[in-house]
């Protein structure tokens, strides 16, 4: 990158819609769990906008929204009301959306994100921490969904009325990677809180970045474009990166940017104009007369606050500080709350847990992940495995105490994952206890040395690789139960005796 090419800076604000994973919809009793259901099977007079139907607030949805707000360090409004946002579209059954306008439920927050250059090989280790301000987060209802086939359009109202949280940042994002990092963090928070799937592919999280370029050092904002239909985090990053490049090229050649709404063509990797600049839409907001204002008292707020768990970033910092883990380990272990909780339960069950956390981390990342992957269990479902964290802690201690060796322990762990049995039982039942009897091991080693004179000579000639082979032979003779350290020492001794 030449000096000349860095003369523009991008300013990005993000508007994100997140479907909240409540059992019922925002304003009626219909099931909100409708992804993939037959069209128009999760509907009632309320979410179809039938004449005479009235909305009723879903308390759980409000609580979920407050949880996200609290996780984003927002202020929570003690008094707020609903408003009608009027516009016409066939997927909006009432001709207005019940939303919040003047007083959002959550406002003035921020979120710290670790921005990593994902393109680099060691991205987990190097991060720049950035604080992104959250302007507001408000609750509203989702619309239905249109499908266009030939000359006809079909509308499915299953999604109509699903609780939706709209989160708007201040224009604080300064690169495609930052946008990516912000959205990943947001997605992770939603999942940590258990209030949504935030699956972009399923439309449970929808992002609309707005961005503009300006000369570096300038404080004025340039002409803004909005990008829509981004169906993955990668698409968001690629679309923004593409636009930065495109706009930089235009500005450099003396051109100007048009204020437009863009779409993203995933296949071709380009943006295209979806809508030209249009006059500002007048939504004619006014307070929803069918719903009383929403009051949040301190007791309710405290109750909801208590349900917000420690989030990924805080855990990463704590793992590095208290457990001495690497950034890489911390990121991997906290990627999923279920895994992080499981890992911490192992540490908690270990005597001097923090001191042994590295061992626990290694077990989780190698053996636990391997088992789950081979069995097709997603990380979020770690608790469905029969093995419990305290049992892994016990296994780790058995290795440490020399009851079994590491090699045997892996097999024991496999067995624990099958049956949920305690490691001790498995070891006893299968006679897997490590052989540390010096006399017995000496016999085995002598026998191996006697049976492989040629290899012994090679070791003596300095071919250390062959030593490993001999260790293997001795281990095999003990059916894997031999104390590896003792076998090493005894074998070395026996080989040395063959010198001269």
């Amino acid at each position: 990158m030449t000096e000349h090419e860095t003369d523009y800076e991008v300013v990005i604000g993000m508007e994100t819609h997140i479907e909240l994973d409540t059992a019922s919809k925002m304003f009626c009793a219909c099931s909100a769990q409708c992804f993939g259901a037959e069209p128009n099977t999760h509907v009632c007079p309320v979410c179809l906008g039938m004449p005479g139907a009235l909305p009723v607030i879903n308390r759980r949805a409000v609580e979920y929204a407050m949880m996200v707000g609290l996780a984003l360090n927002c202020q929570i409004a003690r008094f707020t009301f609903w408003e009608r946002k009027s516009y016409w579209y066939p997927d909006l059954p009432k001709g207005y959306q019940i939303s919040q306008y003047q007083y959002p439920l959550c406002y003035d927050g921020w979120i710290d994100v670790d921005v990593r250059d994902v393109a680099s090989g060691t991205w987990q280790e190097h991060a720049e921490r950035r604080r992104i301000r959250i302007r507001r987060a408000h609750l509203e209802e989702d619309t239905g969904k249109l499908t266009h086939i030939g000359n006809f359009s079909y509308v499915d109202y299953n999604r109509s009325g699903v609780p939706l949280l709209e989160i708007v940042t201040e224009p604080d994002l300064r690169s495609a990677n930052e946008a990516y990092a912000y959205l990943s963090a947001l997605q992770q928070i939603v999942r940590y809180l258990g209030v949504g799937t935030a699956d972009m592919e399923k439309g449970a999280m929808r992002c609309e970045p707005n961005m503009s370029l300006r000369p570096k050092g300038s404080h004025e904002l340039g002409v803004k474009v909005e990008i829509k239909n981004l169906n993955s985090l990668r698409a968001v990053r690629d679309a923004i990166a593409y636009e930065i490049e495109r706009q930089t090229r235009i500005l450099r050649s003396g051109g100007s940017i048009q204020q437009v709404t863009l779409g993203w063509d995933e296949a071709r990797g380009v943006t295209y104009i979806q809508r030209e600049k249009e006059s500002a839409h007048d939504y004619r907001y006014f307070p929803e007369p069918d719903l009383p204002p929403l009051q949040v008292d301190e007791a309710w707020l405290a109750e909801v606050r208590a349900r917000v768990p420690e989030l990924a970033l805080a855990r990463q910092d704590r793992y590095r500080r208290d457990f001495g883990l690497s950034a890489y380990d911390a990121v991997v272990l906290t990627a999923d709350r279920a895994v992080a909780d499981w890992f911490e339960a192992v540490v908690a069950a270990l005597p001097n847990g923090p001191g042994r956390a590295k061992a626990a981390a290694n077990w989780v990342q190698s053996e636990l992940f391997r088992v789950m992957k081979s069995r097709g269990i997603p990380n979020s479902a770690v608790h469905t495995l029969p093995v419990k964290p305290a049992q892994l802690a016990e296994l780790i201690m058995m290795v440490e105490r020399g009851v079994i060796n590491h090699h045997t322990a892996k097999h024991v762990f496999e067995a624990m994952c099958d049956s949920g049995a305690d490691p001790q039982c498995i070891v006893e039942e299968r006679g897997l206890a490590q052989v540390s009897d010096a006399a017995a091991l000496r016999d085995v080693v002598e026998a191996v040395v006697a049976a492989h004179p040629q290899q012994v000579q090679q070791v003596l000639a300095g071919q250390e690789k062959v030593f490993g082979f001999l260790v293997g032979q001795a281990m095999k003779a003990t059916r894997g139960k031999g104390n590896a350290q003792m076998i090493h020492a005894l074998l070395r001794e026996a080989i040395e005796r063959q010198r001269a």
Partner: protein
Amino acid sequence: MRALCSLTIAEARRLLRERAVSARELTFAYLERIQQLEPSLHAFISVATELAIEMADAADRRIARGEDTPLLGVPIAIKDVLVTRDLRTTAGSRILENYVPTWDATVVSKLRAMGAVFLGKLNCDEFAMGSSTENSAFGVTRNPWRLDRVPGGSSGGSAVAVAADLCCAALGTDTGGSIRQPAALCGVTGLKNSYGRISRYGLIAFASSLDTVGALTKDALDAAIMLQALEGRDPNDSTSVSAPPVDVHAVEHAPEKLQGLRVGVPKEYFTAGIQDEVEEAVRAAIAQLEALGARVQEVSLPRTELGLAAYYIIAPAEASANLARFDGVKYGLRVTGNDLIDTYCRTRGAGFGAEVKRRIMLGTYALSAGYYDAYYVRAQKVRTLIKQDFEQAFAQVDILAAPVSPTTAFPIGSKTEDPLQMYLADVFTLPASLAGVCAISIPCGFDRLGLPIGLQLIGPAFGEQRVLQVARTYQMHTDFHLRKPNLDLSSLAS
């Protein structure tokens, strides 16, 4: 037969309980009378003959089992803005001409559960917007006291059905006077309940913050019986509240005298524009209250004249959003155009009448960017002031007595060309709606043409009990509510 149809709910229930008459007999009497009078009066949009007989038979079976409810076997008709399962519900609009709901309004299901018999759906101004029932897409309803006069509105069909004995009682709705004004113009009793006392779930919304459901009845006791049947907090209506239930027995046995009752007469309700005979009759009624022992004093509701302006901002604003759902996509009329916008425009252009379009435009304008603060926000402030007017008045008196309508029933067609004149018909009913308080209209006299005049008794929010008791006491000493229009069947047939 005539005697059967003129029964009050209380009387009908007594005969039904004593098995002196069956629900079937009673229902047939009404159906026959509807058949005879409907061509002249046009109170109904839909007469539910088969359903009524079916429900009457079901009621008779329940009576035979010894069941007893306040409405078991009582024939009732329903304003066509309340949704009824499997029974066409039009809201008086072409846009819902063939709309058959899949569910019942809460008030309708309460009536069903009590075993009331549904005679049909009553005519009204389109989406309850109007004061004469002339805005119905299904033709005008005629006042039974003089067929060339309007019945008032928007619950004109309800008022006529009760006045002409086409039903025992009728459901109506009142947003700015739509129960009280037609009750006054047709000489029946109509109670507008406090906002939130009766569920709005299933009421096709006109102005959500003002809409109330209520009944039009033959007297105050029946009004209490209907209130008891309909009231109560509804989990499906977040704006409904639970209030102490009405004590029907206490209304029935209201004291003969009004000793100790403080009656306020708001001076702003006796100003320009009021018909002399209306003022005289209302003042005479107030004198009667005084004669019965009430202490009468003049009070002031200084913001009364602002009510009309505030109402005609707030109600159309809410209506403009409430009626947005009628877009031809999901139900009701669709007139297919060249594209989506064209379809919207053609559907709504063909489906809505002139008054509805006028109010949608008024409301849309009032909510538009740049005008919102000047109109909607300001109107809400005025509304607060009007509420305070009533609070201050009720700190001094128990009840307010006033006219309902400045005039008696006006000739059909006389105000349709002048919307503002029509709006002024509601000038005395709008403030109570804006304040959310309760008010009843009861007959208190007749003008020289023999047209009924109504007395409005206004109580504080959830003060229905006292309002009903005072109305009952008044009706114990007067017979205006017992007089019937002369509907000579032979002359009407011509």
